[in-house]
């Protein structure tokens, strides 16, 4: 087990940086391919998100006249960098444990909120009315799903007695995964409802709804700036799914086999929780999504915190 990986290497190369980006893009490509197959189409090649990035890098970035230019161009950069850092914070059981100097679960929670905040600011800085609508929807959705996430994380941390992801992984490796522990099932269900919303896919893609608000905050972006947002969303998939694995099923052998098992888990989470969900559902309205998150995931996460506190 590599405990003392140097921090720059972890952020830029593995498991953050290049590795996370490549894997995130592959996950997105897989998602599009499988979604196409489920709809009876051939679908794009697996490397399609990668082609998109190269294409966007070669296009021009246009800034609208009424946009606040520094903010408009700065936000995609902040978003992509925050996810790059977050990717280095997620442990890969048996292979990689994040350096405590880099941060713990709390830092990861804050970093996970950055993409939504960045999209809100980008939407309002672009000066487009669709961006403003995206801003308000993103904010409402974030208020709805952030609460359950914090409570889920609190429940897991309370059970383990530590906010360090390495401790959480180590605890489950000795005491058994939380996935098989009925006490943790409410928290698991709440997390399963949270991650599609955080990844912004169909039942919960209300802020970026293409057919309603023309991709909302992303409407005015083009070229490399848009590419940075695509990078951010690919990295976010790896971070959020990796967090789910670390919280509920971090059982894996040491060495390369552990890495393979980890990646396989992410692929399963992506296909079931994202692809299957988004091809089989329509989009919710923002009030429906808000009510849903304040009803079920919040109740479940409060329940799980209470059970853990009593148990």
């Amino acid at each position, binding site marked *: 087990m590599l405990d003392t990986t140097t921090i720059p290497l972890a952020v830029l190369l593995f498991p953050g940086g290049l590795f996370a980006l490549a894997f995130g893009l592959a996950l997105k490509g897989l998602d599009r391919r499988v979604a*196409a197959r489920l709809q009876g*189409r051939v*679908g*794009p090649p697996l490397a399609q998100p990668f082609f998109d990035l190269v*294409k966007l*890098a070669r296009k*021009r970035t246009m800034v609208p006249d009424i946009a606040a230019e520094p903010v408009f161009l700065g936000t995609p950069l902040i978003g992509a960098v925050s996810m790059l850092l977050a990717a280095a914070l997620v442990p890969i059981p048996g292979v990689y444990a994040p350096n405590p100097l880099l941060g713990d679960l709390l830092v990861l929670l804050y970093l996970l909120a950055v993409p939504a905040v960045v999209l809100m600011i980008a939407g309002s800085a672009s000066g487009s009315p669709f961006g403003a609508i995206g801003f308000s929807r993103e904010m409402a959705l974030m208020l709805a799903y952030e609460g359950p996430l914090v409570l889920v994380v609190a429940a897991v941390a309370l059970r383990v007695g530590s906010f360090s992801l390495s401790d959480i992984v180590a605890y489950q490796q000795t005491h058994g995964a939380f996935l098989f522990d009925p006490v943790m099932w409410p928290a698991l269900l709440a997390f399963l409802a949270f991650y599609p919303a955080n990844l912004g896919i169909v039942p919960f893609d209300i802020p970026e709804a293409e057919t309603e608000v*023309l991709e909302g905050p*992303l*409407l005015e972006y083009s070229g490399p700036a848009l590419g940075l947002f695509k990078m951010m969303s690919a990295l976010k998939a790896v971070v959020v799914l990796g967090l789910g694995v670390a919280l509920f099923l971090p059982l894996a052998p040491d060495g390369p086999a552990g890495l393979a098992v980890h990646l396989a888990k992410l692929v399963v989470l992506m296909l079931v929780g994202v692809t299957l969900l988004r091809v089989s559902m329509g989009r919710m309205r923002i009030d429906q999504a808000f009510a849903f998150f304040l009803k079920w995931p919040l109740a479940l996460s409060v329940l799980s915190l209470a059970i853990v506190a009593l148990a």
Partner: protein
Amino acid sequence: MTLMQTITEKARNLAVRSPWIYRINAGSCNGCDVECATTALIPRYDVERLGCQYCGSPRHADIVLITGPLTARIKDDVLRVFAEIPDPKVTVAVGVCPISGGIFRESYAVHAQVDQYLPVDVNVPGCPPRPQAIIEGVAQAIAIWRERI
């Protein structure tokens, strides 16, 4: 060939596999739009296998499909939207209306042909054109786009 040229050539080969499509309805009767939207770009004919993706915003577009005879009412808006599309871009005129005005060509209310105002690269005639023809037009547009990106 220097290393830089090789890398540029490689990047171009990758970039050309991701053409995003945007439609402008310049006063079309909707016949061509139905062909574009529901026939040419859905499961049966699926241009996503060419890497194409429909985009809602002109800022994301690479290939522009224009339908309709460019009515007087919509002309300024069409030109404005077209100017919002970042370079390099390729324009495809879908249907006979943007090419010649079609059955509306005598009308006082249309400004056809579209290529008086916009640089049209590919013409796909038909009223409406068959889905296969639209896909062929998109494929030719990709070949032209390759020289520009």
